[in-house]
């Protein structure tokens, strides 16, 4: 009851805050030039072309629009570090930008997007760079975390959150990419390939399940992005993350339908919303032959929590984590109790629905005998953390073990014979091949037999598969999505109507057909259609492509046009 009251007050206050800048605009003033950011054509042609198209359409509304295509490094400056007038690194806060979220297994749980993208607490430095500030929404985002036991209750919350976001149109979603992957089906049995919801076929389940049809039991794939590091305590780019996931086991893993299931744990038992008992499988080994035991599992969390508290000149205390990337995923753990060699109990600080997905299925199991000295050493140093660590040959307990790697060149893995789920292939090799022509050449010639990712023109891929009998294309809707983000702090994007009107200028279907060559699914929310469970909601509002509709919408909200056709504020 009181919460509702508070919400109401805050809502009123917020309306005031929103109304103030709006009121400061003299009525009838011309809507200023809008700058829309995207990366350059060289970096990601698809994003560039989409933005170009939308910018053209926006101009039809009587807007002066500039398309600013800059390299990613600069975009960080002009978007991420330019949220408000005061903090802008560039000379002004950003207005509207093309943005994308990529799918990762741990994002199979809606928590991360629901909370991090829109919660007002992460408005200044976190991922809520658009500056969304809605107490009502904040409450929902917090609530879905607490509903551990009642999945349906949580679903309701998630649905409500999606509806709010859709109505408020703070992010104009337009597509979930279909990630196309090409597999050499003369080398592998196509039936043994697993599609993971929202991720695609290049997933852990495929790696351990794929069956070679010949004696050459080697899977060769490539990435166009970077192979920077193989560190169980660091979240690096997409490709190295997928490798660490194969080489370090986790207590639970996200299964192909997006739900966390016990993996290295034989069982995960919730005693109550704050206590969970985890029992390890018996007989697991580290790649160096040592046994995997419960104190290793406990240490894996302790390492993520390790850090020092520092006091600055003003007396403010701050915590410096040694594993800053994983610390957030372990932060909710209050204590860990080792019950015996194979079982242990986690006690949480607050109840968390996402604990299985984003902690048990997220943290890599570390061999304590290797990492304890490293972490202790790091605790002694002020200016180093785990990100400066790279083992010569990393040791994990996953179904694959490292043979060799060369940063930015390749990584070579081998099936770990002592693993209880030994893969059917013997060798797994990933090359770094930024050159797409080369990638295509290799998949056709057989030098490569599993095309992992394809940032280029999907049509070409389709053509290649059509031309080559031994190749098959697999595609799945991604958890990730492409969208236009609006800086809702400032005019004109502080006006819901205006944002909705812009949303009407995005020709979703045309983009899917022409730019993505059909290899994308329409998006209307931050929860992908791939996560079927979390989309069991009432239909979300739609924003059909219609310039006229957009103009009508604007007109009804009091916008007008001058003699030159320029849009004027109400």
């Amino acid at each position, binding site marked *: 009851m009181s919460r509702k009251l508070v919400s109401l007050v805050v809502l009123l206050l917020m309306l005031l805050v929103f109304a103030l800048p709006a009121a400061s605009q003299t009525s009838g003033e011309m809507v200023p030039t809008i700058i829309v950011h995207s990366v350059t054509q*060289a970096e990601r042609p698809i994003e560039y072309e989409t933005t170009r198209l939308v910018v053209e359409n926006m101009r039809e509304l009587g807007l002066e629009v500039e398309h600013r295509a800059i390299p990613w490094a*600069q975009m960080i400056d002009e978007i991420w570090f330019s949220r408000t007038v005061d903090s802008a690194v560039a000379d002004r806060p950003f207005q509207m930008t093309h943005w994308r979220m990529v799918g990762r297994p741990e994002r199979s749980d809606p928590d991360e997007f629901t909370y991090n993208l829109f919660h007002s607490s992460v408005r200044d430095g976190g991922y809520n760079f658009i500056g969304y500030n809605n107490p009502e929404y904040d409450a929902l985002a917090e609530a879905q975390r607490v509903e551990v036991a009642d999945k349906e209750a949580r679903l309701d919350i998630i649905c409500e959150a999606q509806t709010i976001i859709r109505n408020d149109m703070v992010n104009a979603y337009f597509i979930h990419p279909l990630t196309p992957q090409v597999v050499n089906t003369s080398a592998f049995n196509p039936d043994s390939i697993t599609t993971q919801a929202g991720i695609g076929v290049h997933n852990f389940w495929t790696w351990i399940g794929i069956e070679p049809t010949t004696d050459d039991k080697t899977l060769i794939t490539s990435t166009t992005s970077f192979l920077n590091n193989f560190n169980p305590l660091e979240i690096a780019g997409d490709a190295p993350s997928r490798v660490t996931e194969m080489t370090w086991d986790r207590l639970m893993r996200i299964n192909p339908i997006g739900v966390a299931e016990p993996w290295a744990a034989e069982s995960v038992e919730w005693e109550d919303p704050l206590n969970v008992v985890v029992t390890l499988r018996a007989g697991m080994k580290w790649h160096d032959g040592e046994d995997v035991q419960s104190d290793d599992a406990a240490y894996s969390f302790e390492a993520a929590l390790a850090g020092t508290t520092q006091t600055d000149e003003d007396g403010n205390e701050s915590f410096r984590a040694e594993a800053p990337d994983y610390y957030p995923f372990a932060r909710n753990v209050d204590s860990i109790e080792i019950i015996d060699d194979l079982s242990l109990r986690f006690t949480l600080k607050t109840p968390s629905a996402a604990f299985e997905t984003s902690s048990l299925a997220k943290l890599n199991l570390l061999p304590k005998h290797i990492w304890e000295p490293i972490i202790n050493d790091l605790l002694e140093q002020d200016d180093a953390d785990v990100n400066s660590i790279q083992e010569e040959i990393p040791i994990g307990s996953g179904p694959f073990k490292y043979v060799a790697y060369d940063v930015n060149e390749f990584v070579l893995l081998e099936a770990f014979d002592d693993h209880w789920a030994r893969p059917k292939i013997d060798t797994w090799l990933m090359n770094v091949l930024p050159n797409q022509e080369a990638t295509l050449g290799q998949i056709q010639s057989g030098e490569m037999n599993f095309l992992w990712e394809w940032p280029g023109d999907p049509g070409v891929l389709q053509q290649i598969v059509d031309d080559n009998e031994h190749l098959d294309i697999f595609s799945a809707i991604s958890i990730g999505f492409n969208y236009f983000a609006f800086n809702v702090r400032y005019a004109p994007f502080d006006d819901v109507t205006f944002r909705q009107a812009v949303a009407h200028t995005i020709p979703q279907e045309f983009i899917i057909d022409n730019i993505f060559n059909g290899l994308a699914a329409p998006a209307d929310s931050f929860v992908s259609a791939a996560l079927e469970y979390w989309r069991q909601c009432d239909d979300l509002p739609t924003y059909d492509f219609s310039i006229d509709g957009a103009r009508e919408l604007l007109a009804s909200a009091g916008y007008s046009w001058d003699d030159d056709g320029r849009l004027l504020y109400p």
Partner: protein
Amino acid sequence: MQQEAMAREGSTGLPAAEFRQGSALRQLWETNLEVFQRDRMALFGLIVFAIFALVALFAPILAPNDPLTPLKNNDGDWIKDALPYWLAEPGEDVAEGYTNDFLLGTTNIGRDIFSQLIHGSRAALLVGFSAAAAVAVIGTVIGLLAGFYGGWVDSVLMRAADVAFGIPFIPFIIVIAAFFDPSIWNVVIAMAILLWRDTGRVIRSQVLVIKEQAFVSAARVSGASNLRIIFVYIAPSILPLSFLYGSFAIAWAILTEASVSFLGFSDPETISWGFMLQDAFLSLALTRGAFYWIIPPGLCIMLTVMAGFFIGRGYEEVLFPRLRRM
């Protein structure tokens, strides 16, 4: 005696003004003329430039379509990967309604390659000529100053040239292009900052030679000031050399712009030939064997760069006759 000579004025029948024409500028003009008269390849280069300059000037008229806007068919969809009409077999994917405009087909998102090619000449010539002008002017001025004044001026300027020689060119442009907004002017700026070095050194040594020549001493003995010596005596003699380096600089600028665009550090709103090749490369034109997309921009680059080389060599042969073919 003066009267006598005045009286003679009529008898010579030559008004003084006629001899005034023997100015350094006229000689310069004649040198230029000689370059193109003597060397047919240089003339060819000049014609190539002239043609491309015209194309660039009238690009919006000559190009049948906007180079960046994808062409749409009747259904409103983009006409992607359309073959040039002269390549397409009957019934193959040639866009209806546009056929005759698709001299070179369309890109993977339906942009008209021919129109891009035409618009590309603008970037090439703009970059080429402005970089060449910058390089030639900076190099000439620095060479003149260093050579003429010598001493610490020379030391400082030549040390600066050493530094410029030590900076890797393409990496420098990449870094510049990455730090500043992508623009074709990055190439021009980087070239202006670095490439004056060759021109400057050569002009300097040439100035040193000319400075020591008797006719310069003669001017000095006649009371000519430093400025007069620089501008009336030395500068005209080295200007052809500036032109030589200028024409080579045009070539380098066009090549460099292409390379930088190819690496993806150029302005995507400015169509250039390098950009087209990059687009083709990224869009896998090679795999698809879309030679109608790959070959024309490369040929255009080659042609303009060669034009620069030919003109440069023309100057070289006039200035350094020893290289002349016998």
